[in-house]
């Protein structure tokens, strides 16, 4: 059979950094000898609008250039986006990772998803560490821990590389801590 790709779908609101997170993930897995794609779904672009981004990861060159319909993992950046449609195509063997303060029960109630659910209070962690409610680096840490497709160190190295040109050294370190806390504080069940 042709290679089975590991696929991720990210749901966020424009401005929350889901697109950057998907790109960072692609860059991070490359150095482990894995091929990766990252691509966003573009619509009318405006801050706060629901958006999606996607990843494919594989040990072999990735041939497919179509959208991701049956992800292995769904990542939700904002619990106001939760509905059965965010888990569309996600099998019961898959994983749903959500940024929420309200816990697993709310996630299951809103999505009707019976598989593995992981929750992380990413916005509060982001506010504490980077002083802004942009949850993407925390979520990357949570994705690294939950999926095992990339290491904590690799994500932190890429975050440093990506941010050191744009941010102050303090802000870069804050983002590195945000990744760490996402990795350590995500909790899963099911």
């Amino acid at each position, binding site marked *: *059979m*042709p290679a089975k790709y590991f696929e991720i779908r990210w749901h966020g609101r424009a401005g929350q950094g889901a697109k950057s997170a*998907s*790109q960072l993930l*692609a*860059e991070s897995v*490359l*150095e*482990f*000898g*894995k*091929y*990766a*794609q*990252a*691509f*966003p779904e*573009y619509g009318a672009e405006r801050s706060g609008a629901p958006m999606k981004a996607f990843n494919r990861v594989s040990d072999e060159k*990735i*041939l*497919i*250039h*179509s*959208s991701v*319909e049956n992800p292995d993992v769904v990542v939700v950046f904002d619990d106001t986006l939760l509905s059965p449609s965010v888990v569309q195509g996600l099998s019961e063997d898959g994983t749903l990772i959500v940024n929420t303060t309200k816990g697993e029960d709310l996630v299951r109630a809103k999505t009707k998803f019976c598989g593995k659910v992981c929750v992380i209070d990413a916005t509060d962690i982001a506010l504490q560490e980077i002083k802004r409610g942009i949850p993407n680096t925390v979520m990357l840490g949570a994705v690294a821990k939950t999926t095992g497709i990339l290491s904590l160190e690799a994500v932190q190295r890429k975050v440093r590389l990506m941010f050191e040109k744009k941010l102050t050294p303090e802000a870069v370190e804050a983002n590195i801590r945000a990744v760490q806390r996402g990795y350590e504080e995500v909790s899963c069940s099911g």
Partner: protein
Amino acid sequence: MMEKVAQMIAVTGAQAVAHAMRQIEPDVVAAYPITPQTPIVEYFAKFVADGVVKTEMIPVESEHSAMSAVVGAAAAGARAMTATSANGLALMHEIVYIAASTRLPVVMPVVNRALSGPINIHCDHSDTMAERDSGWIQFYVEDAQEAYDLTILSVRLAEHEHVRLPVMVNQDGFIISHGVEPVSFLPDDVVKKFVGELKPIYPLLDTEHPVTYGPLDLYDYYFEHKRQQIEAMKNVEKVFPEVAQEFFKISGRKYSFVEPYKLDDAEHVMVALGSTNGTVKYTVDKMREEGCKVGLLKIWMFRPFPKDEIQRYLTGRKSVVVLDRSASFGAEAPLYEAVKSSLYESASRPLLSSFIYGLGGRGIAIEDVEEAFEKSISGELVTDYEYYLGLRE
């Protein structure tokens, strides 16, 4: 030669091409810097602003002016480039035709996006198909690596003394231009040595040998000049394999007019342009596991159209499905029409069918490709009937 992925860099198709342009370092780049422009010139403008390249960057007030500036610069003897997309290319059309007629070796990466209206920013091939008779060489690429490679290769093809024609390197909008995937970059010095220095022919700025560009050329000589252009296009058949061989030496990556995929024993073949070829390859692998003798003929070069390769690879097959990502209203879709006419003289013609898909960015999934193959294998398709994939009735 397989690259080690750990040494590759994850970039978008637009970034890959911007880096090719950085390494080519043309003398002049002219661009209209707002929509429907692509991120290619945005990245390249940054290289200019940061002093990474010495290129003269000319921001202009429209795409029509962008191509006009490029034509002027190229006629003066400069290596000139621009990039565009969709309605920007449509607005350029008049000067696109003039660039080819004037035999100027301009290389232009194009991001394929639907033409308005209604307004749509997503991928299809209607923009470059509208330029298929403009006299430009046209490549369509499957992924970001090919976009990078063929941009570099095209400089040598365009500037070859027996060609001297402009080249469009077309990549699928958003799917490739904004999608991140690993690309293997060549070292700067290797690219610079490969493209070399432009050897101007009849440059305007050579005042010792004054020449005229774009004069009045009526029924006395216009026809002869068009004939020269036709002959130059024919020369691509001979020159392109030579340039591709030299590119292979520096990169280990082989390019040709077409890429046959699992065709040796294939009875049923699909023909396509652009990024969809990857999805078809995956589907071919999947269907072969199920015992179907299917294959793919990817078209890299659409102009000049590689008639000999089409005949060589498609003659004698049971069926051929041609996928088009653009329509020709009131006539056959562009790729289908070209494939069909190439097979007219063939002794053993396959059952041919035409599928239009993906207009305005409508997705194409493995299931869609399977559907087209299955209909073709079952023999239920009618030649010359236009079928659609992923369309609601």
